C-alpha cells in the first residue's frame, strides 16, 4: 500500500520552453537551455549566434521559447548582447537580463574576441557557453573545445585531436569578471543555483555549461544525463565558481574520482583510443583536478 504523496520537484516549475522544437533525441544543449531559463525567468533576452540553438528553436515564423531571441552573427554573441543591453537600458528597460547564448565554437574560437572585449569592459550581460565540444550544428567539426583524443570529422581517427581542450575558464578568470562558474546538465539544481546567483550579480557573468551531444559524441541518447554526471565525477569537468578571477569555490567535492575510462567507454568518438592514449587523458584530468582543488583552497 503506497502512501499518497506530492511530487517534490527540485527545480522551478515554470517552463519557458515548448515542445515541438528541433533538437536531436537526448540533446544536452536543450537541457541546458531548459534549466538556465528556469533560473532566469521571463524577463530574459537571448542573443544566439550560429550554433545548434540557432536551429533548435525553430525556423521563421515559429519559435519554441517563451523569451525573446535575437539571432545574431556567429562571432557576435557577446558584442550583440553588449549592444542589446545598452539599447534596452536607454529605452527604459533596466530589468531584462541580456544573455549571450553560444556554443563552444562561437565562444572558444570565432567569438572569443567579442567575449574578451565585453568581459574587459565588464558589460552587464550573462554569457552562457553550452559546450558540446565541437561544431555540432555544421556536422561535428573540431573546435578548440574538443578534448584530446576525440574523433570529429576534421580530426578523423588517423589524426584525432591531439591538442588539449582550451581552458576557457582560465581565460575568463584573467578578465577578473565579477562571477563565473562551471555547471553540468547532470547537476541541474547546482546549475539553476548558479544561474540565480549570476542573475543577482552585475557586470559580466560567465557560465560554462557542459552539454553532451549524442549525435556528435556517438553516445546513446539515454546516456546524456549520465555523461553529464560522469564528467564531473571523473574530475574531467570540475564544478566550481570564481569571483574576480579568484575566490575559487568547488561546488562538488568529489572524494573518489571515477576513472576516465568509464566516461570514455560510453562514447564512440573515443572508441579508437589505445590504453596508453586513455592514460594520457587520465593524467591530464588528474593534473587539472589537482590544480583546481589547489586554487579552491584544497
Amino acid at each position, binding site marked *: 500500500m503506497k502512501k499518497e504523496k506530492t511530487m517534490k520537484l527540485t527545480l522551478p516549475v515554470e517552463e519557458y520552453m515548448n515542445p515541438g522544437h528541433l533538437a536531436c533525441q537526448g540533446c544536452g544543449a536543450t537541457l541546458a537551455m531548459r534549466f538556465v531559463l528556469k533560473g532566469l525567468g521571463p524577463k530574459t533576452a537571448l542573443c544566439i549566434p550560429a550554433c545548434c540553438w540557432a536551429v533548435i528553436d525553430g525556423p521563421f515564423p515559429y519559435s519554441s521559447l517563451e523569451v525573446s531571441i535575437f539571432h545574431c552573427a556567429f562571432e557576435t554573441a557577446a558584442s*550583440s548582447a553588449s*549592444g542589446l543591453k545598452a539599447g534596452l537600458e536607454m529605452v527604459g528597460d533596466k530589468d531584462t537580463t541580456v544573455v549571450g547564448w553560444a556554443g563552444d565554437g562561437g565562444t572558444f574560437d570565432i567569438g572569443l574576441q567579442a567575449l574578451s572585449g565585453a568581459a574587459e569592459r565588464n558589460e552587464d550581460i550573462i554569457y552562457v557557453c553550452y559546450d558540446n565540444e565541437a561544431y555540432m550544428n555544421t556536422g561535428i567539426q573540431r573546435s578548440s573545445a574538443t578534448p584530446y583524443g576525440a574523433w570529429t570529422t576534421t580530426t578523423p581517427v588517423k589524426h584525432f585531436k591531439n591538442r588539449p581542450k582550451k581552458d576557457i575558464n582560465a581565460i575568463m578568470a584573467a578578465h577578473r569578471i565579477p562571477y563565473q562558474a562551471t555547471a553540468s546538465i547532470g547537476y541541474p539544481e547546482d546549475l539553476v543555483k548558479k544561474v540565480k546567483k549570476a542573475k543577482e550579480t552585475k557586470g559580466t557573468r560567465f557560465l560554462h555549461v557542459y552539454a553532451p551531444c549524442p549525435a556528435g559524441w556517438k553516445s546513446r541518447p539515454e546516456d546524456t544525463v549520465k555523461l553529464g554526471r560522469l564528467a564531473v565525477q571523473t574530475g574531467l569537468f570540475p564544478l566550481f565558481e570564481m569571483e574576480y578571477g579568484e575566490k575559487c569555490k568547488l561546488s562538488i567535492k568529489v572524494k573518489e574520482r571515477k576513472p576516465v575510462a568509464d566516461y570514455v567507454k560510453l562514447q564512440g568518438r573515443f572508441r579508437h583510443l589505445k590504453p596508453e592514449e586513455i592514460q594520457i587523458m587520465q593524467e591530464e584530468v588528474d593534473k587539472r583536478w589537482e590544480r583546481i582543488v589547489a586554487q579552491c583552497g584544497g
Partner: protein
Amino acid sequence: MKKVMMGNHALSWGAQLGRAQVIAAYPITPQTQVVELLSEMCADKSLDAKFIKVESEHSAMAACIGASLAGARTFTATSAHGLALMHELLHWAAIGRLPVVMGNINRAMAPGWSIWSDQNDSLSQRDTGWMQYYCASNQEVLDTTIQAFKVSEALAVPGMIMLDAFTLSHTYEVVDIPEQDKVDSFLPPFQAKLRLSSDDPRAFGGLTSPEHYFELRYKQQKDMEKAPALVAETGKEYEKLFGRRLELIEAYRNEDAELLFVTSGTTGYTARVAVDALRKEGVKAGNLRIRLFRPFPFAELRKLVGRSGRRVAVVDRNLSFGHHGIFFQEVKSALYGHADGTAVFGYVSGLGGRDISLEHFKEIAADALKRRPPAEEIVWIGVRK
C-alpha cells in the same frame, strides 16, 4: 550658433543633436575625432547616450545592431578597413531593417597603408542595402546626419554618410549649429517598427527557408525605393526650419551645359571651380554632384541630364577592378534609353588621395569634348604612365 569645426566634428554634432542613444565605435584614422568628441559629449552629459568602447569595428556594428533592435537610436563612425571589417554586419543591419546611421570617412584600402581619400571603401559596400550619402561641406555633413536619422527610421533602412579623408574630415569650416529644440521638433524620438521587448517575446532573424526569404527581400527593396522621394521631402522640411536645403543631386550651371561633369564628395566642389573657369574660356560646362548614391536617384539624374547631344564626363575617385569607375557604370546604366545622343565618358582619378585639381578638370573637359563615342575605356587622369 555658428562654430568653426572640422568635418569629423560636424558628424559628432549631428549625432548629438539627433540625440543618438547608443554609440559603439572603434578608432581608425581619419575618423578618430568623431568618436573623441562624442566621448566628451557623453562624459559631460551634453549627450545622453551609452558609448560602448568596443574592441573592433566588427563588434561596433554588432553592438549597434543589438542596440537598434532594442529600439534605441544608434550611431557609429568608421573608415576604410574598419568599414570592410564590418562588411558581414552591414548586410545584417540592412536586411534586419535596423536604422543605424554611420559616418564613413572615405579612405583608400590597403596594402600599402593609406590614410588618404578614395571611395573604394564605401562603394564596395553598395550592395549591402545601406543608404549612401556623399558630402562636400561640413555644414552638409551635420545637416545630412540629422536628416539621415529621420529617413532611416521612417523606412527602417540604415544609412551611411561619406566624408573625404582629410579634405573634408579634417578641413575646418564654419558650421551653423541648429538649436536642439528645433531639431527635436524635426526629429522626434525613435519609434521602432519592430523591436525586441520582454513584454512581447519574439525570435528575430530565425532560419528562413526559400519559402519565405524572397518576400522579405521584396519588401526591403520596395521600402528602399521610397527613399529618394522621402529624402527630397525631408530636405524641404528641413529647409523650412533651418533655411538650408540639400538636394539628391546638386546641380551647378547645368541647364545650358554642353559638357556635364558628374562628381561626388569634395571633388564636386573642385568641379564647380572648374565649371566657372571653363565658362570664362567659352566652354559651356556644368556639374552634377551626386549626393544620394543609394538608392540611386534615377529620375533625378535623368531629369538633370536632360536633352540629348550633351557630353557627360563622370569623374570617379574609385575603381571596380576588372570593370570601370563605379559612378560611371551606374550613371551610364541609368541613362541608357533615357538620354539618346548623350555621350558618357568615364574618368578615373585621385586614387589613394592624389589631388584632383583644377588642371585635371581642364584635362577632362578637353578630352570629353573631343573623344569619339561610344568610348568605353577608362580614361586615367593624373597617373604617371
